[in-house]
């Protein structure tokens, strides 16, 4: 049993719902008790979809458990087919139905419906939402496209001369973080370099589209968490070229363009020479100087977190101090990425661990999910949202992709806006005693009433530290280093440092003191540490 206050991902059948809802004419019959219909509101309220998800829940009750839950399932599947006339059906069980082992796949087969029926086995007590989405998409693709597979080892015939290469964009779902806009942006980008997008799936695709996924020349899993498995199978089975780069950020988009152009046998040098994006120039322009070395903490699904860290470090000149993901399936990739920044990845689905890490690292900017936004707010750190789980705010009315060149512009804006402007920062540093500019007031652009972190408020109280016994530094003791004590005048001097860098100054000074066995931090220690670490 795992004590969970809040969870980044839903159960795997919600992942299956994201696939079914993204598709146009596929219905999902879910063996589930009353209450599981809550998942409908994710789509109708958070994403503001105008249609109910195409999901029928069997709604079994305690009194059904003795006997006829299997009949209930069959009746629900038969009625759903009659009413909605889908072109394919997904059948499966939610967590409770998994326990009663009615075998929805077998029951649906017995109905002999005149459409393909795909049975889903989604182990609710082991797996989570993204896995469920990936597995569902993979099973559906195999079931519908599989019958069109050529004999193993068959080479794809050469394209007709003069025809444009065709590719499929895979992985965009309902309830995806900016998937709708990403797809539009990448379709536009590919068109500009002479590649046609044949099918986008599952978002907006029909069962017939899924069946002919093998026809395109190139396969692009835009969201590897969801489409990686299906794309690998398609590439192998239909001898399609697989493009693995996820085009988030200017650098990655350039690589994506180069990779897909090569796969299509095209020359992309023209578009690469004249990128339609402002982000690199904005980042180079002098007013962005103040962004240099800002310490950022990154957390999200693996794809967005890895991409965000790369953009932060290479395209904005930030320093990545933390990188993590809740996608355990992609822990290896995130650990590899973290090594690039000389840090250790945080792999967890417990937000309290993430919160503790943010408190420990004292970053100047958090790039995370909606949960990190709340964590950052509590700690008084600016934040921008880069990844699912989604919130109603992640479906903006405006066009706001994360991918491609326009996506890079969007990222520049959304990450830089929460930060304090360079001049404001200087003025605060110079006139720190200003009665309107102080910790409690917060910065003007973040709105009024921004409360300061309880953690640092507690840390601001010198009493506790003074009550603690003063321990003489014992460098020989290999155990946990003893926290040094702040002398009152040093504590006072620390408070003169602007609040938005004070946490960092405190941390650096304490680290400096521990490393040198200094037991009592004085004003001198504070400035020694400042000289040692630089700004």
């Amino acid at each position, binding site marked *: *049993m*795992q*004590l*969970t*206050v*809040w*969870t980044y*991902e*839903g*159960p795997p*059948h*919600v992942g299956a719902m994201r696939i079914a809802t993204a598709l146009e004419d596929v219905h999902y019959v879910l063996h589930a*008790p*009353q*209450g*599981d*219909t*809550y*998942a*409908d*509101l*994710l789509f*109708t*309220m958070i994403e*503001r*979809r*105008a*249609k*109910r998800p195409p999901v*029928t*829940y*069997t*709604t*079994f*009750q*305690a009194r059904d*458990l003795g006997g006829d839950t299997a009949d*209930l399932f069959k*009746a*629900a599947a038969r*009625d759903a087919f009659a*009413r909605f006339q889908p072109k394919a059906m997904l059948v499966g069980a*939610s*967590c*409770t139905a998994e*326990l*009663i082992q009615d075998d929805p796949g077998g029951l649906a087969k017995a109905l002999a419906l005149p459409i393909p029926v795909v049975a889903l086995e989604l*182990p*609710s*007590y*082991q797996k*989570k939402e993204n896995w469920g989405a990936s597995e569902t998409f993979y099973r559906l693709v195999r079931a519908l496209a599989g019958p069109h597979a050529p004999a193993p080892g068959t080479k794809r015939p050469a394209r007709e001369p003069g025809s444009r290469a065709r590719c499929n964009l895979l992985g965009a779902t309902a309830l995806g973080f900016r998937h709708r806009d990403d797809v539009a942006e990448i379709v536009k980008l590919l068109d500009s370099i002479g590649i046609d997008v044949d099918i986008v799936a599952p978002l907006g695709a029909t069962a017939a589209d899924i069946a002919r996924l093998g026809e395109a020349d190139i396969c692009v899993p835009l969201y590897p968490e969801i489409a990686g498995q299906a794309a690998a199978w398609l590439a192998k089975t239909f001898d399609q070229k697989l493009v693995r780069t996820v085009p988030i950020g200017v650098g990655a988009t350039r690589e994506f363009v180069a990779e897909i152009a090569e796969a299509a046998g095209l020359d992309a040098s023209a578009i690469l020479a004249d990128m339609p994006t402002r982000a690199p120039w904005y980042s180079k322009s002098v007013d962005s100087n103040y962004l240099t070395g800002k310490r950022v903490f990154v957390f999200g699904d693996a794809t967005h977190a890895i991409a965000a860290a790369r953009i932060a470090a290479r395209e904005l000149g930030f320093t990545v101090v933390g990188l993590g993901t809740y996608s355990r399936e992609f822990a290896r990739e995130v650990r590899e990425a973290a090594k690039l920044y000389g840090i250790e990845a945080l792999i967890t689905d417990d937000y*309290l661990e993430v919160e503790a890490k943010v408190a420990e690292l004292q970053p100047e900017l958090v790039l995370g999910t*909606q*949960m990190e936004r*709340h964590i950052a707010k*509590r700690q008084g750190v600016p934040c921008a949202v880069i990844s699912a789980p989604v*919130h109603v705010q992640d479906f903006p009315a405006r066009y706001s992709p994360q991918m491609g060149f326009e996506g890079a512009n969007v990222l520049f804006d959304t990450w830089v806006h929460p930060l304090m402007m360079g001049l404001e920062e200087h003025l605060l540093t110079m006139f720190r005693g200003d009665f309107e500019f102080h910790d409690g007031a917060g910065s003007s652009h973040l709105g009024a009433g921004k409360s300061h972190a309880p953690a640092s408020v507690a840390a601001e109280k010198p009493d506790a530290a003074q009550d603690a016994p003063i321990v003489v530094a014992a460098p020989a003791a290999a155990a946990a280093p003893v926290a040094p004590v702040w002398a009152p005048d040093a504590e006072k001097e620390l408070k003169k440092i602007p609040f938005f860098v004070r946490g960092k100054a405190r941390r650096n000074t304490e680290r400096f003191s521990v490393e040198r066995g200094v037991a009592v931090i004085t004003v001198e220690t504070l400035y020694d540490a400042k000289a040692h670490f630089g700004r």
Partner: protein
Amino acid sequence: MAMLDLQKPEASCASPPEILRERGQREVFCGLTGIIWLHRKIQDAFFLVVGSRTCAHLIQSAAGVMIFAEPRFATAIIDERDLAGLADANAELDRVVNRLLERRPDIKLLFLVGSCPSEVIKLDLSRAAQRLSRSFEPRVRVLNYSGSGIETTFTQGEDACLAALVPSLPAAPATAPRELLVVGALADVVEDQFKRIFERLGIGPVRFMPPRSALDLPQVGPGTRYLLAQPFLGDTARALDDRGAKWLPAAFPLGAEGTTAWLRAAADAWGVDPEHFGAVTAAHRARAETALARYRAKLEGKSVFFFPDSQLEVPLARFLTREMGMRAVEVGTPYLHRQHLAADLAMLPADQAYSEGQHVDNQLDRCRAARPDITVCGLGLANPLEAEGLTTKWSIELLFTPIQGYEQAGDLAELFARPLERRARLAA
């Protein structure tokens, strides 16, 4: 799957209504959802759901939970190892509870809340609660109830929670004077208003359940007279009856008329002089009438269709038809408690259409055919119906807003007037 039957109920009260009973897909929350308001109401209680990731996801999605730093509820998510052996599941539960109570020394009352998976694997939470109570009392009392979707619908979760609390209520001494108990979670402000009115009527002592603190449990005994503040408390009422308490039948305190009827039930039991009752309530009634008049102009003659949700549908229909001059096309409710709703049912037209249970697709067909002016429905249906051109009112808002009593009568009417007003503004 539609198993329809038009059933004539046994002849009991004045106008026994005809009820369409349906079986099929329900578009209603399970009882776990009650935790969203209960954990705010009882401020030193913690609700630990023993369930699956679905349960955790349900509560956080229904509540939009991310706003809380650390809410007073959590889920002990059952995993594969727990399914392999129940003995281990119990040991695991003890470990989780120990960790939780270490972290939260402020908790005085812990509810272990059963879910669909815990019911199906027959994890005995009442024994677990006893076992854990023995280790943590007197610091923490541990109780249990089921909020599972296979047994409870939405507000029935509150019923199950309060019913579980009843055996813990201290016994009133045999000689104790009679006491009024108001049962069902109300907004604090509404409780305070009722408290003042009862005081002026000379009715008392008055206690409320659930209490705001677990240390402040009301006593109960043969002297207890109770008013139900909510229409979904069948099990709680039965548990109170078993302790010797007596129910004061009344319409529910929605709207001016309902509030007067509800207060009068207590006044009659206390033998309050009708003139005094009239004098005490007159100003409140007048104020409510003034507030209601503004919205009656907007709602009069409009039709309303209720999808089943909170069991508040019958009293709401009574308020909207009688005080707002609306017409209820269909009053759908998850469960219709004949006895508790008798007074409200009696005030509705004899030919009023009701439905109990749900077959959501059939009901949507009926709703589309009727094209009501307002459809009261859950969050999963509201936007799709709006997109079809129907005006909707989210039913969950009726639970998360103070709507009971005289001072809230206008607010209640406004909740129904707002969607119409909005549609009119956007069309202009």
